[in-house]
């Protein structure tokens, strides 16, 4: 045995173990975000498979739920039914749901929606500009924008708990969803 080399190899392996240990201290689904509390970046984006555009300005004074997704994203499949249920509950209200397609082809996105159900419009984001504006870190991520046009909620993990999600939307509607503690 060459103990000197062993020591070097041991030292070389430590960072890897440290990385895993670091992973243990983290909730893989939790993300630091600076978005809540800031003015929601404005956008005007074309609607997927429709000759229409949507701009955030149109919904001034209303609540907007923005969900970034992609057809290649597996967790998006899990949260989609929950989003659909929430959206159907707020049909014809002052809460508006939009999907934003992230890094995907229109065909694949449309096919995905046909397969999993389409309850609200999805927007195209050429060059991912809006995604960058919203400091997107991956998909799926969901933002709630309140009546004052501020981001009051940002979650970088699938929305799976319908009741909790409805509560958050209600709080945003009532203006009681403050920035800071609300993000997760």
């Amino acid at each position, binding site marked *: *045995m*060459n*103990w000197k*080399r*062993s*020591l*070097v*190899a*041991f030292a*070389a*392996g*430590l960072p*890897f*173990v440290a*990385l*895993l*240990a*670091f*992973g*243990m201290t*983290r*909730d*893989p*689904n939790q*993300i*630091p975000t600076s978005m809540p509390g800031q003015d929601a970046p404005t956008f005007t984006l074309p609607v997927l498979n429709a000759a229409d555009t949507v701009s955030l300005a149109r919904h001034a004074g209303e609540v907007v739920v923005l969900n970034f997704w*992609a057809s*290649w*994203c*597996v*967790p998006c499949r*899990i949260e989609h*039914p929950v989003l659909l249920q929430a959206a159907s509950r707020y049909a014809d209200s002052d809460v508006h749901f939009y999907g934003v397609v992230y*890094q995907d082809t229109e065909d694949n996105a449309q*096919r995905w929606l*046909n*397969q*999993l*159900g389409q309850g609200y419009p999805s927007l195209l984001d050429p060059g991912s500009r809006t995604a960058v504006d919203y400091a997107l*870190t*991956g*998909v799926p991520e969901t933002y709630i924008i309140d009546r004052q046009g501020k981001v009051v909620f940002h979650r*970088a*993990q699938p929305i799976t708990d319908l009741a909790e999600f409805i509560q958050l939307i209600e709080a945003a509607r009532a203006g009681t969803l403050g920035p800071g503690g609300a993000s997760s």
Partner: protein
Amino acid sequence: MLRLIGLASVAAAFAIAIFGIVAAVVAVKRRDAGLMRSARAAVYTNFVLMSVSNLAMITALLTHDFSIDYVAQVGSRATPAYITVISLWSALEGSILFWGWVLSAYTAGAIWFARQRAGALGAYATATMLFVGGFFYLLLLGPASPWGLVSPVPPDGPGPNPLLQNHWLMGVHPPLLYLGYVGFTVPFGFAVGALLSGQLDDTWVRLSRKWTLAAWTFLSLAIVAGMWWSYDVLGWGGYWAWDPVENASFLPWLTATAFLHSVMVEERRGMLRAWNMSLVVATFLLTILGTTITRSGILSSVHAFAEGPIGLFFISFMAITLLGSLILLAGRAGELRGEARLDRMASRETVFLFNNLILTAFTFTVLLGTLFPLVAEAARGVKVTVGAPYFNSMTIPLCVALLFLVGVGPALPWKGVEARELKTRFLVPGIGLLVATALALLAGVRGGWGLAAFAFAGFALVTNVREYVTATLARRRAVGGGFLGALTGVVRANPRRYGGFLAHIGLVLIAIGITASSIFRLDREVTLRGGESVAIHDYVVRFDQLRAEQEPHKVVVYAQLTAFTADGEELGRMYPALNYYEMRGGEPITTPAVRSRLDEDLYINLLAFEQNGANATLHVIIEPLVAWIWIGTGVVALGALISLLGGRGRRPAPIRVPTRPAQLGSRPRPVEVS
């Protein structure tokens, strides 16, 4: 009672594992053969104990003993008996229990076969494998105990995860995966045994090669069974999504495949000895890493099991095995120096080197993509996801290069050929390459990678099939008889070689299936009223009616469809369905209807329906040549089986290199005669 039996067996197994480790180590120090026999007895006893514990759990599941935590978690009175048995591995605790059983069986088998000829190496290997086993027994006693007491006893349980209940492959995929994953403990044990004992000749390779091949075969089958299941159940018409758990099963497969090739270089030429040892250790570590990632909640994945204190146990175990292996490998690297050099570029050794290079690059690519989110967060505090686009763009070139090597390798002999001979060796495969390219162009393939994949597939198919044909014809000329008899004779004479070529042929079939089904996939979504039809490709699909059936533990809603050819010839009924599991509530699980043929699959998924049955929304997909992925896997497994079963006692002849001045530090090797 069952609870007590199960718990006591695991507790005893843990104690006996510790005794066995101490006994094996002391036996080496004192050269005490009697003590070594006790260490081996500990291994066999543990197999018996783990069998008892697993059978106790299966009995508890079958008798619906809901006072036991695990049974209350996954059992249900309405679940059929077969599903109840396989729910043994449907959740974390049960899967660890099953893991412990498989590991104890592997360890007992490996130690039994090695008992006569391993010496100190065998003793340390015994201790190593018992150490790994002891870790799993510890999990079963602590954070992953399935034996917790539930009070008050619930009258019924929720039944296992619906995804497990829905397809026969779920009875096959998990045990195959465990047989693969756990099997790599054996070569790891022998490698560590060699490193600890300093017995660094190729004894450990001989002891572990077949176990590695067996584990590799199980893992290959498991990965493809998982793909097939995903294709048949998840309803998206695909079979691979680069999910962390899929990657976790793929990583050790890559390193094990590299080992199975490079070990031949060691056997023949005495080269790559430290490298082979590293590959075996890496394979084992990757199985543990995969388990750590998916069981500890480090990365999120659809497959991930519940999080809990178990993560800490896994990471500690990972740290011990990783750092321990690094210390041993680095410390012994100097003594593992090879004795030969490459003679020519155009030789089989070179191809194996490139094969290993690409497989290693492949491993790093997948590992990086899987762990990158963690690295990015640690380094910059930001979360990123790495999706299919990264993996596809990075790995497709590597796959194509591997396919090329599968064609080149068998055509080149050991120690290489002269340049002028290359032409004759590659003339026929070259024609195969051109024919395949022409066929692909005619079929409408235009992308560069797609064309390259088909071209090299044709090339590799020809070289590997040609090995069979030329050898069989030569044998027929020599000994006469029928073609089939000569073929059998050829395979019998060298099963490792011809099993390997057969595995290559299977791999080429898989590659063709994957490439064709990715490039030529067609799909459409339609909503049909009763009696309406949709035409797609060469098919017409008519929606006849919607039906629902109440089964004991689920409600099945299915569409009755009739498929026709474009000419109106009836092909048969198809029944895509949605399953609603009562106890689990919520989302339906799809059962696509698949009409699988050798040329293409007609794949239909029921997406939605009107409650009154007036219409159904269908996703109709045409996927060419998908069946060849499953067939190819069967061929790979058959090839591996031939390699495994044949050739007992026969060893490949080492190729002696013309005498060179001995290198400093190299040790004399015994001359091998076979």
